[in-house]
């Protein structure tokens, strides 16, 4: 089986809100306020693909990253962790905030890659948080899909997957070729990789495809557009915190409980 992991670099998601700024004209985060990194769910997707390779379920893992020219750190990392191939789709001139355009681009790239048995996408990119691209890719390729997966194993000619559902965890069987979106789990922390592998990764080739090379005319990309971004802003935080002295723990707890009872939010009658 060949697995393709869809990757994206996003603004460091741990940047505290106090340091976050928006460029209201460009309708996106201000330039240069934090480094660009592989998103957390992209990391989990990559780890799941590598675990499937370790288990012999998948023979080839291809990392496919859509991003502006030069954004190859995530692909170097994927190669250092022994992904077999790395492909960079250059998104210059594409609206990164519209999941439908991104999906159009990725579908064209997936078709160019040839037969792919499994596509893994993060549940959402931590910048726009739409959580759509993986699902749109599945629909446009006409492939079965399971969302919010955190574990997968071979089950005969199918895959058995574990996914988060409203009532707990569900186990499903899905027949490849298929698309999975991947959520967070303690078992999916991205591995570190060795220094040797990291050095070797710098010599491995990265295939680069432009929008033109994927045969996507500007009109076709424009027609794929679905979401129009009207305005982006940073909300004011209104709440004001009442600080309770913590030097005497018992007293602090008594005060908290009393305040909550005054607010009629907690009752200790039970």
């Amino acid at each position: 089986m060949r697995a393709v992991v869809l990757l994206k670099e996003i603004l460091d998601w741990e940047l505290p809100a106090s340091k976050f700024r928006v460029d209201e004209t460009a309708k996106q985060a201000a330039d240069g306020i934090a480094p660009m990194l592989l998103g957390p769910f992209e990391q989990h997707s990559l780890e799941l693909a590598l675990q499937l390779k370790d288990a012999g379920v998948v023979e080839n893992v291809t990392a496919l990253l859509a991003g502006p020219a030069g954004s190859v750190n995530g692909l170097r990392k994927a190669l250092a962790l022994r992904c077999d191939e790395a492909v960079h789709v250059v998104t210059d001139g594409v609206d990164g905030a519209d999941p439908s355009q991104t999906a159009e681009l990725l579908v064209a790239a997936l078709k160019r890659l040839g037969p792919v048995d499994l596509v893994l996408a993060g549940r959402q990119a931590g910048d726009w948080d739409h959580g759509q691209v993986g699902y749109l890719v599945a629909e446009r390729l006409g492939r079965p899909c399971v969302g919010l997966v955190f574990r997968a194993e071979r089950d005969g000619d199918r895959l058995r997957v574990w996914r988060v559902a409203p009532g707990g965890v569900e186990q499903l069987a899905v027949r490849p070729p298929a698309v999975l979106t991947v959520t967070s789990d303690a078992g999916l922390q991205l591995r570190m990789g060795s220094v040797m592998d990291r050095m070797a990764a710098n010599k491995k080739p990265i295939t680069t495809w432009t929008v033109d090379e994927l045969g996507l005319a500007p009109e076709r990309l424009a027609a794929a557009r679905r979401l129009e971004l009207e305005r982006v802003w940073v909300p004011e935080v209104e709440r004001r915190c009442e600080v309770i002295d913590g030097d005497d723990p018992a007293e602090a707890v008594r005060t908290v409980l009393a305040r909550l009872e005054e607010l009629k939010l907690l009752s200790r009658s039970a």
Partner: protein
Amino acid sequence: MILAAVWDRRTLPETLGAAARLADALDGAVALVSLGDADAAADAGRYGASRVFLVEGELAASGAESTIAALADLVRDVSARAVLLPGDDRTAEIAPRLAERLGGTAVTQTIGVDVAAGRPLWTRAAYGGKALATVTAAAEPVVATLRRGVFAPAEPTGDDVSIERRATPETDGAVELLAREAPPAAASLEDAKVIVSGGAGIGAGEGFRQLEELAGLLGGAVGASLAAVDAGWASTDRQVGLTGKVVSPDVYFALGISGASQHLAGIGGAKAVVAVNTDAEAPIFAAAQLGVVMDCHTFVRSMIEQLRSPP
């Protein structure tokens, strides 16, 4: 027509509340479809739906496939301009796929909707809750998920409406449900009045066991931050935040949680947030009504003692 879809009664009032306001602004009516829950269908007329559908059968047996097919058929049959779904782990998958099948637009985890020049203008969070954005859809129908606990619920002032029953559509069998593992008798986070939630500061070992005890004494549920879930101290279904459960309890205890914006995005609906953290500069204090700068273990132990022996 605006089509609201629910899976249970709990989400009926807020989903129909949002649908009614959108329908008013767009000069339309509201239809409701219940995916498998007869009680929700029975109540829907009273909460304002003018047509009510109930899809019967084994909807979950094919993953999301049958549900998407059933909803797509209904949207076409009632000519819906918009479909509103409660935002959760199920609709995260269903909304984009349904929108794509209908040639429309998905707008996920919305927290508000206005109508400008005859078109819905949706508000949603971005950048892990650090920013807000308004978006419009370039193609209809719009399939929107509604963040739980944000939209004002409809009141049960209407009349009963007869239920139109539909069968679960057949699928090609490419996805099959094998088993369900319900979480072990834990109270649902979405319904809990009190949530005691642990983060990186709780640590491995005894920490979460003590939170269970505290939650038991308060009649509440245990939640966790992404950091605690990633560390393996709490299960994935306990995660509160943008990518976990979005909760709206009366009281949310954030214990050893620093307050990453993606976590704060999940607790905006809480009536009161109590933050306990050793770091006085932690962003959680900016989102809290009550804050105590102290070790969260000491706080939890002291609270358990006091609740065991009321004054």
